[in-house]
């Protein structure tokens, strides 16, 4: 781009045209060369880290997101069946030639070394769409070499599911290299018999309510950090620097203390035999069997996360409040405003940048939180991250985990973009 500009520029007569350096190159050209060298130098300094982040961080995340649409299982396991299925109109059962192709696919698969066999992943994949499909594949595949034509009857004898139009519709639908089905599942939808996407039954909806709860919990925590953070940030901002710095330690100590330590602290305080319950009983406010359950529920998550995220609200608020001259409030009062009006109309609007910065920061961190909800959240204090972790580690439905993760990531990136527009990354302060 700059090169094109340069050659276009050299045809026009410019005052530097006639000037040359000692080695006879035009001054303009020489300057451009120097500029280019400096740009290259700057880029070379950045490139090791850029390459590192792209390989170790960006690429793995892109790869993970790809898993949410990647759909190789059916295509790889049943190439002949899919080809034969192209003739099928979707009504009734497919004809004998499809079942014959299916038998061939299974026989070919059995010849592969065990680790390369595609039938296992195929069963798991089909099971996401239709329960019992895994059993149908697993129970049939070993017997297929003994099957005699007509294959259709042999398959129907082996497992009743091979006689189900629904299974064949699933095979046809998922017999493509890309799928939307993980996103369909992640938004609590499913395919009905006609292949249309419909909402699941009310009692089987998990993810949309979970996203809602994650959002609700994050907003609650955001509100609480604001309610608790605003007064102390204000108090520190009106104190003399020396005292304020001392109080700042109260904010920075939790900020710098290990997350696990803070979570442990809350477990010590909140559990049934914990400090709060014991103190209340000792004070006679509670009976022994009336112990409060403060943990392994939503209360635990909200209290512990408010504590953990409070410094992220206080620090930006404080740095904004420090810069607000106290004379504005005095001026408002001397002009007849009541203290409340002066606060609401004069002081509060000036703190908005701090509230915005702290608020978005707290919200972004809260929405993707995993550790604290997992340890003190119990069942109804869980958040979307916990569900992603569950699919990653226990149910091993990686496609669904990737789809949920991608939705979360997109949400966070939009928030971050808004944050950037609002305050800019440069003002990101770290204590």
């Amino acid at each position, binding site marked *: 781009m700059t090169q094109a500009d340069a050659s276009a520029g050299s045809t026009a007569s410019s005052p530097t045209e006639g000037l040359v350096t000692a080695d006879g190159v035009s001054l303009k050209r020489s300057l451009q060369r120097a500029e280019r060298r400096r*740009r290259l130098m700057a880029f070379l300094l950045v490139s090791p880290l850029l390459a590192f982040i792209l390989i170790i961080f960006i690429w793995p995340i892109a790869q993970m997101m790809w898993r949410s649409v990647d759909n190789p299982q059916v295509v790889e396991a049943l190439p002949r069946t899919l080809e034969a299925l192209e003739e099928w109109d979707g009504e009734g059962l497919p004809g004998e030639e499809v079942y014959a192709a299916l038998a061939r696919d299974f026989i070919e698969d059995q010849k592969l070394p065990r680790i390369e066999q595609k039938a296992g992943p195929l069963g798991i994949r089909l099971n996401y769409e239709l329960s019992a499909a895994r059993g149908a594949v697993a129970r049939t595949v070993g017997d297929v070499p003994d099957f005699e034509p007509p294959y259709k009857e042999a398959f129907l004898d082996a497992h009743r599911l091979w006689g189900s139009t629904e299974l064949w519709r699933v095979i046809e639908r998922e017999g493509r290299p890309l799928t939307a089905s993980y996103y369909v599942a992640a938004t609590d939808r499913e395919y009905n018999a006609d292949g249309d996407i419909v909402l699941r039954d009310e009692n089987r909806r998990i993810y949309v309510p979970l996203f809602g709860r994650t959002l609700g919990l994050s907003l609650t925590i955001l509100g609480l950090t604001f309610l608790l953070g605003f007064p102390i940030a204000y108090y520190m901002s009106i104190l003399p620097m020396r005292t304020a710095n001392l109080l700042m330690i109260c904010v920075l100590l939790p900020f710098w203390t290990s997350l696990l330590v803070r979570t442990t602290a809350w477990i010590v*305080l909140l559990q049934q035999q914990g400090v709060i319950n014991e103190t209340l009983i000792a004070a006679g406010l509670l009976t022994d069997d009336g112990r409060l359950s403060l943990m392994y529920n939503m209360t635990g998550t909200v209290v512990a996360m408010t504590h953990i995220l409070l410094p992220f609200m206080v620090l930006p608020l404080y740095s904004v409040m420090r810069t607000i001259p106290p004379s504005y409030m005095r001026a408002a009062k001397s002009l007849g405003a009541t203290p409340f009006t002066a606060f609401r109309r004069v002081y509060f609007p000036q703190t908005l940048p701090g509230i915005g910065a702290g608020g978005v920061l707290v919200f972004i961190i809260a929405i993707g939180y995993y550790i604290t909800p997992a340890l003190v959240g119990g069942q109804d204090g869980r958040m979307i991250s916990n569900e992603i972790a569950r699919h990653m580690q226990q149910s091993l439905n990686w496609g669904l985990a990737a789809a949920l993760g991608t939705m979360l990531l997109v949400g966070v990136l939009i928030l971050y973009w808004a944050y950037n527009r609002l305050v800019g990354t440069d003002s990101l302060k*770290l204590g």
Partner: protein
Amino acid sequence: MTTLPPYATNLERVWFYAFRVICGLIFLFLLAPILIMIPLSFNAEPYFTFTRDMLTFDPAGYSLRWYQDLFASDSWMRSIHNSFIIGIAATFLATTLGTLAALGLSRPQMPYKGLIMGILISPMIVPLIISAAGMFFFFSSVNLAQTHIGVIFAHTALGTPLVVITVTATLVGFDHSLTRAAANLGASPTYTFFKVTMPLIAPGVISGALFAFITSFDEIVVVLFVAGVEQRTIPREMWSGIREQISPTILAVATLLVVISVLLITTLELLRRRNERIRGVSAG
């Protein structure tokens, strides 16, 4: 505002004291949970509450048994060892790469500054569970899963944004004519860097390194996904301690970690003051 004016009305008086009490309670909320663990870690009994002996300050109620437990336990000692090895290696990598990148980014000639900055600080914005999931698949496919190198690389990636941000912030106030002067006087770029640039940006680099270290030292989500038994760090050991067999040994570890954070805060505060002194202005 910090003292009550003599003409204050009764309402103002009440509000003045009420506000201070509210603030006091909020500070208590911030500090108490952390401080309360410290005496409990000296509990003689395997409980998480104050026993009668502790409340009456009877020496029999206190003991160092959980600290002895900690130092006698192989798995805890290994996790401490791992945390420091991984933390120091990740800090070294993150600081080196991050400082170089910050030097490049602060040059006015740097092309695509916004985009590159966005990529470099992305590890700080992406929720950890997503980073962990991505790295889990990637590291398994390149045989880095369940290795020390894998965890170190992951922690380096998570730590660099903090180094880039702090060093870039230090470089904002950096007088570039100093390096030009050095070059003019015949110093090579390397010599200029170590003799002129480095001493001036050292506070930023050191606090960036501390941020990177604490990030690695405190990181658990990626460790849960990427590390094996051999790479268990302190937070990972605490995690299984909390989930499986909760014993006051955790409180002993927690107390030691609080001491470490106090040391860190002190160091950072001293660095900040030094930085202010060097520039003669408040860097904020």
